[in-house]
């Protein structure tokens, strides 16, 4: 193991948890680009994370399948009706939609999770609902990326810094423009670079930080474009990567925020 590999190993935890300074991160990226062993180590972490995500997805799928069906009470008859209604209350709480809002008691503050009125016209026998209960589809995130070690990141993780986000398409000039800006400005404190390959684009040993998009809109940044995000998370500038806009936009951002961005050394 070379000294550099030891250095990487000692910083692996900080690297995968995004705690390294930009300078050290860049150094580690450069080492990993040339060192198969370290690259393999990082890839193994990414693979473990993918397996954990798959395990979680299966658990979630199984949990959704095991949601109890809605059971409706028999027509109320004395005590038996009361006890069945109690059962129904328990199950109705699992399916808020099963409570008819028109018949719900609007005067009480008790929510559906505790309250459920018996159906005024219940089915004559116990019936299982045919439609399985499914959670509504999750909204598409505006920004969700995954690093090489498998960690997911939201925009919050970049707060406090000016983030230069580039969506690199298959055009070599796009990647070259981003690489040139990274090489020129990487030493600026409070400035972070992140390139995200567009769908289907496979970057070969990039010399700038990259993460994979995970089904987000990337702040509506199209392939071949960049977005500069202010330290408080607002979109500051957008432009096309390969026409020189990027350097001008970074210069303008630095002038605006240089004094306000905390130095992180």
């Amino acid at each position, binding site marked *: 193991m070379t000294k550099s590999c030891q250095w990487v190993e000692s910083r*692996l*935890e900080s690297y*995968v*948890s995004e*705690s390294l300074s930009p300078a050290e991160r860049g150094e580690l990226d450069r080492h990993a680009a040339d060192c198969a062993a370290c690259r393999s180590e990082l890839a*193994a*972490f990414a*693979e*473990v*994370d993918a*397996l*954990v*995500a*798959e*395990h*979680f*997805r*299966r*658990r*979630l799928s*199984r*949990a*959704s399948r*095991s*949601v*109890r069906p809605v059971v409706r009470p028999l027509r109320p008859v004395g005590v038996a009706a009361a006890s069945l209604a109690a059962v129904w209350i328990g199950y109705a*709480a*699992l399916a*808020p939609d099963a409570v008819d809002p028109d018949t719900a008691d609007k005067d009480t503050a*008790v*929510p*559906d*999770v*505790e309250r459920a009125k018996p159906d005024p016209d219940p089915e004559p026998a116990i019936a299982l609902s045919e439609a399985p209960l499914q*959670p*509504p589809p*999750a909204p598409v*995130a*505006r*920004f*969700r990326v995954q690093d090489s070690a*498998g*960690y*997911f*990141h*939201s*925009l*919050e*993780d970049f*707060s406090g810094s000016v983030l230069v986000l580039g969506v690199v398409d298959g055009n070599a000039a796009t990647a070259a423009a981003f690489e040139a800006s990274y090489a020129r400005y990487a030493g600026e404190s409070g400035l972070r670079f992140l390139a995200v390959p567009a769908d289907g684009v496979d970057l070969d040993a990039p010399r700038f930080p990259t993460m994979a998009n995970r089904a987000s809109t990337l*702040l509506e940044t199209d392939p071949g474009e960049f977005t500069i*995000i*202010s330290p*408080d*998370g*607002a*979109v*500051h*500038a*957008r432009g096309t990567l390969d026409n020189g806009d990027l350097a001008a936009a970074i210069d303008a951002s630095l002038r605006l925020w240089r004094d306000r961005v905390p130095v992180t050394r």
Partner: protein
Amino acid sequence: MNPSATDSVLNKSGWAPRAGDAPIDFDLAAREHRPFLMQVAVATTRNVDDAEDVVQEALVRAYKGLPNFRGDCPLRVWLARIVVRVSINHHRSFVRRVKRWVLFGDLEREDSDGRAAAFDAADPAGKVELETLLDVGRGIEALPDEFRVPLLMLAVDGLTIPEIARILEIPEGTVKSRIFYGRKRLKKRLMPSLAARSER
């Protein structure tokens, strides 16, 4: 392009109302956050079939405890904290009550060639071998809660490390360390499977 209020993507939704604000519509909040809380429960329960019960119990407790909600964190974080507590306690009390029972859902069967197989179907995409997934499941279940829970919570849609830290009420650095060491232990355990996969 000038920044605008609508461009801000760091504004949180779901903060508790302060004095003078409208009161929380708990019914609406419960419906809105239920899918998220379900994911948190799936990440924290040992027995996944309990997840729905855990969410239900947590929502009932949250409703009863709503007057104690100080509004110092987003409502969904507060609700998720309750889910985590109910989930852990649910498992402990369940284990106490039925520790000698075997849950059919946890059983594995053996195929004719003696290889272990779960009752669940293999992943529909067919990307990961069943044996590997079983290994992953066993490895995760073998982790103590302090490593297992943050590791799985990272897979919850949209949940970030700062938010996990707030839900578990531990520092961000601790969350990162626990996730890292959880994954390291898992990596060590899965090394043969990973090596076999990379050779293919």
